[in-house]
């Protein structure tokens, strides 16, 4: 990347829509002075598929499966929030056993998602061995999901008024064995991520999001908790069975004592959440009451009840990436929802990218953006436009820039 020798010009780099490590197709335009970023401009909308419009033409049970396919990695939280919204609108009371089962499935998904993220973050720094280790642990979690629900990713286990499959007592030994496996490996992971010099050197001090910015920009999820804001839907609102469980909001202060809001804090935050998820699953298995798993087992009766409902409801759930909120309005005339609004957690976490990336170097873009865990992965190409001459950096080149920086720092 050349610069004019006489005048110091800032030049623009457009990154996107298909680009490095930013797992969603997002378009950025960075204004650079040398290697430092001076200004950031974000543009969205490349994967807009018209799902809300499609949902307004289907009955609520079909919309559950449509909602599942909004995102692959958080494929449980969208049907969960939708079911909560419909239950609020139609005033359906969910049986207690179903609520505990829903918590177990949600926390299992959180373990899978954070393990995937840990691997990707390590890959962005250049530490591929850790990628293999974390994804090996994740395979065990996915096998457990397949055993409980029938499929590794699209679980199809949520139903309005309850849950579709029960966890019988012969499944419990397998779950307990897997939880022990996760606990043993958690110590190994903690040692690799938090004590390793390379990881610390790349991530401490990079991509800082201050507490004020996090509150003003309405950031959600581990991104905001790592900056010290205690925002967690599971702690604040009593939904599923979280009201009964011993839960508290985790911030990096619990481990290190200070909160900086940088990438290192976000790594700590997610590892602590995995530990919390394992403890929650064990607590749920101990406390599980007996009973039905769904409020209305006869589905045609449920559909006719929803057809007559006239009301609106809001459903919120804490996905691995933050707060998911769905708003559903049912009018009493047709079976399909009148309005359905989905807000995935990443959309609130996009504005915080701007203060995080100011003043950083280009080689830090992959790790800072990946540390907020945006949702969906793609390939990429970066075009550098400098005083009329255009040349492109491919994903490998940008990734190599990131790895080269690690090597430089290690010397």
């Amino acid at each position, binding site marked *: 990347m050349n610069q004019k020798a006489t005048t110091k010009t800032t030049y623009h780099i457009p990154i996107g829509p298909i680009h490095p490590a930013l797992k969603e197709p997002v378009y950025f335009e960075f204004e650079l002075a040398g290697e430092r970023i001076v200004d950031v401009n974000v543009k969205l909308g490349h994967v807009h598929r*018209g799902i809300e419009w499609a949902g307004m033409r289907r009955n609520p049970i079909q919309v559950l499966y449509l909602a599942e396919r909004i995102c692959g990695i958080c494929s449980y939280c969208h049907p969960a929030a939708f079911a909560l919204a419909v239950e609020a609108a139609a*005033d359906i009371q969910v049986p207690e056993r179903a609520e505990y089962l829903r918590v177990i499935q949600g926390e299992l998904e959180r373990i899978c998602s954070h393990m995937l993220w840990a691997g990707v973050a390590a890959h962005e720094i250049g530490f591929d061995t850790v990628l293999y280790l974390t994804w090996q642990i994740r395979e065990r979690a996915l096998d457990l999901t397949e055993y409980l629900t029938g499929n590794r990713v699209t679980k199809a286990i949520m139903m309005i008024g309850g849950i579709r499959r029960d966890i019988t007592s012969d499944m419990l030994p397998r779950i307990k064995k897997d939880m022990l496996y996760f606990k043993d490996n958690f110590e190994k992971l903690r040692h690799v991520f938090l004590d390793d010099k390379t990881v610390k050197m790349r991530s401490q001090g990079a991509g800082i999001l201050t507490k004020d910015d996090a509150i003003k920009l309405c950031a959600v999820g581990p991104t905001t908790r790592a900056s010290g804001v205690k925002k967690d839907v599971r702690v604040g609102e009593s939904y599923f069975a979280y009201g009964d469980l011993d839960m508290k909001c985790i911030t990096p202060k619990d481990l290190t004592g200070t909160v900086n809001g940088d990438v290192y804090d976000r790594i700590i935050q997610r590892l602590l959440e995995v530990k919390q998820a394992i403890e929650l699953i064990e607590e749920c298995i101990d406390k599980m009451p007996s009973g039905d798993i769904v409020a209305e087992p006869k589905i045609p009766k449920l559909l006719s009840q929803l057809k007559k409902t006239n009301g609106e409801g*809001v459903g919120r759930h804490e996905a691995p990436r933050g707060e998911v909120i769905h708003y559903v309005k049912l009018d009493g005339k047709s079976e399909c929802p009148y309005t359905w609004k989905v807000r995935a957690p990443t959309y609130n976490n996009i504005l915080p990218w701007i203060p995080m990336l100011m003043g950083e170097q280009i080689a830090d873009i992959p790790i800072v953006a990946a540390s907020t865990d945006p949702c969906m992965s793609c390939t990429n190409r970066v075009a550098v436009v400098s005083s009329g001459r255009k040349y492109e950096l491919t994903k490998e080149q940008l990734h190599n820039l990131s790895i080269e920086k690690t090597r430089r720092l290690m010397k």
Partner: protein
Amino acid sequence: MTKKKLTPEEVVKYLKDEFKTKIKDVKIVKRKSGSKKNESKYIWMKVDKSVFKQAIKHLCKLQFPHLAVASGNDLDKTIELIYHFTLNYDQRLDEIVLNISVELPKSDPTIDTISDIIPGALITEREKMEMLGVKIDGIPDDRRVFVPEDIPVGVYPWRKDKTGPDKFYKNLHEVKK
């Protein structure tokens, strides 16, 4: 961070004292869940368009809310925008979801921006502009956010009247049976 816990009744009283008749249709809904039957609290209220921005400023003085999202409804002659806020988000089991809805007539769908008070509202306001045709005054950035460039300007995907997107979809999924 909050120093004292707010109850839903206090929030409603605080807003009603200031704005009296401009706040209508207040509903407090409590739903129970889990074995211990803890309650989650929702407040629904309708605010007049003319005092909307002052109401939000007044609410921020009480406690800075978290704006989750703004959703919209196309009722026949009016467009209804619903802003979903949450308060008390760091208190265990005491979070209040506050849903404020504003009705705008279709002949004049304008409203003031709140992104100077709450900067995180920028993306959700831009989305309402392109999806429902609402004009938001004072917004710093009015480009399209989700709708692609090849859909022309007068088409609003969430509306159910003539300006809806019906001409633009293709039934790609129909099976040759």
